[in-house]
């Protein structure tokens, strides 16, 4: 993946999200489906070490509702 040194941001398209909670299963420290059945992103900017796990969650989302956006590096 490109630009690995810079950070990235987790974005969820809530028009697509159906709260299947697969992302929570894969990356519970980033995604949480709460009792109201809605998905909450606990950490929008996970660490570089978490990226592979978060990417797995992105690709396994039944609705393809999650995307990662590379953030421009500071300075």
């Amino acid at each position, binding site marked *: 993946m490109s630009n690995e040194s810079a950070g990235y941001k987790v974005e969820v398209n809530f028009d697509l999200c159906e709260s299947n*909670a697969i992302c929570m299963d894969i990356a519970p420290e980033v995604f949480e489906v709460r009792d109201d059945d809605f998905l909450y992103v606990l950490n929008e900017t996970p660490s570089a070490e978490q990226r592979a796990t978060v990417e797995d969650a992105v690709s396994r989302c039944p609705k393809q509702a999650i995307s990662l956006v590379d953030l421009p590096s500071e300075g």
Partner: protein
Amino acid sequence: MSAPVRSLTIVGASLAGLRAAESLRRSEFDGRISLIGAEPHLPYDRPPLSKQFLAGEWDHERISLSAPDKFDALELDLHLGTRATGLDVAERSVTLENGTTVSSDAVLIATGARARKLGVADRPGLHVLRTLDDAIGLEADLAAGPNRVVIVGAGFIGAEVAATARQRGLEVTMIDPAEAPMIRGLGVEIGLVCGEVHREHGVDLRLNVGVSDILGSDRVTGVILDDGSTIECEVVVVGIGAIPNTEWLEGSGLELDNGVVCDQTCLAAPGIAAAGDVARWPNQRFGELMRVEHWDNAIDQGTYAAKRLVAAETPEPFAPIPWFWSDQYDRKIQLAGRTKPGDEMMIVDGSIEERRFAAIFGRDNKLTGVFGMNRPRHVMQFRRLLADEASWDEAIAFGQS
């Protein structure tokens, strides 16, 4: 295998096949990948076909499995609109309907399954639902405003089509010879709860009765049930299961028995693997030969089998916990695990009355599955317990915590 795999043929251009190709490119495999598809369409997502697409809310573009630029970046050798007709196992070469032969170092079989039909003559108004073209035809018939739609088979496809047709304001009768809808996936008790949800939404649900014939020659005019009664309708949707597409492999030497029989690493022969709806393999976790038609499994197994074919070392056996979801009306149904008739069942959250609950299943003091109706959080929590092979007592204790 001794020589490294430098080229791969994927037979089947749906979810398992596409995700296999994507995972190979992600892992920096830069050899040739040939993708063969019987349908003329680029890979598309099937779950919306019975829901948003059939409701007329989403179009073809919306259900694409891959954005055009991402798909192009895979640099596939693409053969669409032509089905595979044969496989030479020793040469790993696939022959196509259009006369082409594609030879590679390895072959991934992902030809999926097709809708089982009733065994009566095709005619306008009589539908199955599996492909995009099926969905386009059925959507047009629903949009024409029939007086009644009869669904033959109250499995997941039938139940989803019933829900969508009701949401379109159509009268719906759903018929099944079993004592509860979705009985194979959910069991009697939960299946009956789902049946009640359909009745509450106005579906005329008839259980313990089958269909003996379809009326109308130029066009469907009704169905005859095996209790002798007749239901008038203009549209019939048959949802009675799927048959794995293995005919093209007959005579290849591969073992075919309700799917392509593989070892526990999804290998059917040296350099040949299978994944998705067509694959049958011993799932170590459950100690049984499984063929799984779930969306999630197509991704997992496609990815796994691709890796199995190109990796230098043999990976750990493929032993996932089956999981699926189904959306009907405003209810999200999910089941994880492998439940069987006779399993103990316990509600661990919510209640059947409020149509929002989680239930766990167990056998021999082991947790075997979890069901949720609008309870995705609980399903995922118990799915993790399933992965840890939790005992029934541990699962109950977790549910009460």
